[in-house]
């Protein structure tokens, strides 16, 4: 017996929280002397008002889905993977190597290759913290933080000394060959004769991300492995009682997590930049933490949260581009959204629960 109907908890609570977050954001905008209404309009039209805006929103969403799923999978095994940033970065290296050094006949094969390469490198980067946690008890939070820094150094070195074409200013790899260029969503629509979001970076990887959501959902709630991951995440002693090996689950969960983070590179590195640039992850790894926590570590929740963050990112970008509002405002709005929907949800839920309980008791009487 629940205190309030499920729909209220799933829909009403986040909506009210979101509303509160935006209300406070409006106050902040007022405080810096701008018009909240204009800001909202710019954001909504910029991010959702046109297929063009959607093209960007979905691109960012794709990134956040991958990093969000990465955090979520590890979280189910009660491992707090803060290393998405580094794993996605290494994933970029994997994708770059696959695209640069293997002559692909067609993008579809290249995509599969890149997914494998990105996942492999991302997973490899998660493997070390995982094995240290499992065998040596080194706290995964520290090791993954450290591995973010180490990944940055490694990527920097690889780009400057190895992958950068001689004479290029840019610490970036050469451009990937044309055969590896992924179709943009624009192209896919054009195929059926619809003009949609010209020159936007959203590409076929978005569908890979959706598949990843489904895959993670199946993995966690439908497979034996997922069952073991969740059981281990809830109680290590109970897992051992049930014959589930803590080492094995720790390592596997982190490999999957790192692999998902690494797969993000198919979107930003292969799908958008079409070469590997420095700092290609741009904080998406950290946003993944917020996305996963807000999405309650459920793939569908992650998808929604990623969309929300994609919207904020693109809408905020528009805001910074076309109004005099500094781009940092978006970070503040993101913070408020995270705070209200993720951490202060009980503030909304408690009165709601009281309301529904009172109503139910009233009915009964």
């Amino acid at each position, binding site marked *: 017996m629940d*205190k309030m109907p499920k729909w209220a908890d799933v829909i009403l609570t986040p909506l009210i929280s979101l509303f509160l977050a935006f209300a406070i954001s409006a106050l902040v905008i007022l405080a810096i002397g701008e018009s909240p209404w204009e800001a909202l309009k710019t954001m909504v039209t910029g991010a959702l008002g046109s297929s063009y805006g959607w093209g960007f929103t979905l691109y960012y969403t794709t990134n956040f889905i991958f990093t969000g799923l990465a955090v979520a999978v590890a979280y189910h095994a009660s491992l707090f993977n803060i290393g998405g940033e580094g794993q996605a970065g290494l994933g970029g290296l994997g994708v770059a190597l696959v695209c640069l050094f293997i002559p692909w006949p067609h993008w579809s094969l290249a995509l599969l290759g890149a997914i494998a390469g990105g996942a492999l490198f991302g997973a490899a980067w998660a493997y070390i913290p995982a094995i240290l946690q499992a065998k040596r008890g080194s706290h995964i939070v520290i090791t993954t933080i450290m591995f973010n820094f180490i990944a940055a150094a490694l990527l920097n070195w690889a780009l400057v000394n190895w992958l950068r074409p001689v004479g290029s200013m840019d610490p970036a790899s050469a451009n990937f060959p044309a055969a590896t260029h992924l179709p943009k969503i624009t192209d896919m629509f054009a195929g059926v004769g619809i003009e949609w979001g010209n020159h936007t970076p959203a590409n076929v990887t978005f569908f890979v991300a959706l598949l990843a959501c489904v895959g993670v959902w199946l993995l966690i709630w439908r*497979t034996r492995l997922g069952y073991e991951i969740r059981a281990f995440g809830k109680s290590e*002693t109970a897992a051992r009682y049930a014959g589930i090996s803590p080492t094995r689950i720790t390592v596997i969960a982190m490999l999957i997590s790192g692999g998902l983070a690494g797969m993000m590179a198919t979107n930003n590195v292969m799908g958008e930049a079409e070469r590997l640039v420095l700092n290609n992850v741009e904080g998406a790894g950290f946003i993944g933490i917020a996305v996963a926590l807000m999405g309650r570590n459920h793939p569908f929740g992650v998808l929604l949260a990623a969309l929300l963050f994609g919207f904020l990112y693109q809408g905020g970008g528009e805001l910074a581009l076309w109004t005099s509002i500094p781009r940092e405002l978006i970070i503040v709005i993101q913070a408020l959204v995270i705070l209200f929907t993720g951490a202060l949800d009980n503030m909304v839920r408690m009165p709601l629960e009281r309301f529904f309980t009172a109503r*139910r008791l009233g009915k009964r009487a």
Partner: protein
Amino acid sequence: MKSGGPGSAPQSVAPAIELVGISKSFGPVQANKDINLTVARGSIHGIIGENGAGKSTLMSILYGFYKPDSGEIRINGKPIQITDSMTAIRAGIGMVFQHFKLVRNFTVLENIILGAEDGPMLRPSLARARTRLRELAEEYELQVDPDETIDELSVGHQQRVEILKALYRQADILILDEPTGVLTPAEADHLFRILNGLRDEGKTIILITHKLREIMEITDTVSVMRRGEMVASVSTAETSPEELAELMVGRKVLLEVDKSPAQPGDPVLEVRDLRMIDDEKVERIRGVSFDIRAGEIVGIAGVSGNGQTQLLELLGGFPENGAQVTGEIRLNGQPLDLSGRHSDAATRRARGIGHVPEDRQDEGLIMDFAAWENVAFGYHNTPEYSNGIWLDRKAIRADAEGKIERFDVRPPNPELAARNFSGGNQQKIVVAREVERNPDLLLIGQPTRGVDIGAIEFIHKRIVELRDAGKAVLLVSVELDEIMSLSDRVLVMFDGMIMGERDPEATSAGELGLLMAGVTDTENAPKEAGVPPEHGHPADHPDEPTAAPEGRL
């Protein structure tokens, strides 16, 4: 000065406790409904009721842990608003919770003074507490080492700490919530002697228990709760266990185990010279050898902390991390791996060992999983429950529904998280899962701890049925009654060793109690020897010379 029934106290003396119209709900669950209760000063008052009847809630309200939705509390005749535990403590109330509220990595002394310090500095408080503790220990025979950390103490001693905490705060009214669930008979007797002493001093005691024997033995008056309501308050002298049981459950309950003599077959489990050294290099199991044959129940009696837990876990395939195991175990004549990949619980299950662990909440169940998911726990990789890499959710659900029905799990809702079932029903889920696999060997630890009498009856029946189907059962319990009535043979463990074997028909609780305390010469032992030595589990003290158990006399 012992008061009689509730009505017999002179009108002039106000009762120690009066609860008037107390109601409390947790969200939609009404845990207490309009409860009235009067407890006379200087009496021992028992409260009984099924799991989830609302006993703990009521007492927690009295102690200020929960706030009642409505109702009034009067202490010594004066109405009082108990808003938090501090108010309760000031009003002279002390409570020993069902689940102890101790800080596990603190010393006894630190736990005692927590919240009752004399001043901002610790040293003087600790010094005073040390002296006072010594006095209390002497006065009430409640010896504990003040510098031991709680983690190192046996449950019995942890409970002493809780009682000392209350006495240190000069409690006049002492509430004990299921205090004997974790004690040996000797420890329980000891506790009751203390309680009697306290009552004689004029203190008032409320005792919650599931054991009717204890109610009959020690209480002056008793109240019965059912589904949040107070259904009866009677004088103990004027009632009987049968009547109480019926009041509690709402039907007649069989209080004895009904079983025919065992017909043992071939050995199922053969254990030879089994040793286990834990992570901290302490030898927890010290050369244990025994057999269990098909169609018999072997009970292991012992004070908790003497290696039974470790033995059960080891046989079940999950000895604590870092443990080293040597010796030999054969199941149906085939050796079992003691270390390496094939010594895990999954392999043991595949070989036909079922296991109801001692701790259902931390081991036997995933509390956040739905009941149906827990039904597959440990067996999720078996063909019945899986399809390739997938979990066969339909099959598991169907099986869960069957089990819930057959085991009368309430509420019969497979979607409900394990956490939301009462302890007894949680236990039924675990027992259903393990027993219905028809294992060749069933390991079962503390099967009825904290479980109400209705459920106990049911679980005992299932265990006997399994035995009658020709399976072997290894039962570990601190309940001597349970051991003696269920087992066909009884082994007693002390300090990691088996002290001896007894026939339950031919032995007595006293004799077993002596063995449990490490006394093998049970003929000539003095009576007090049944009380375990100060440190409940000697294995925690590797430095102490642990000579042959006889030397302990």
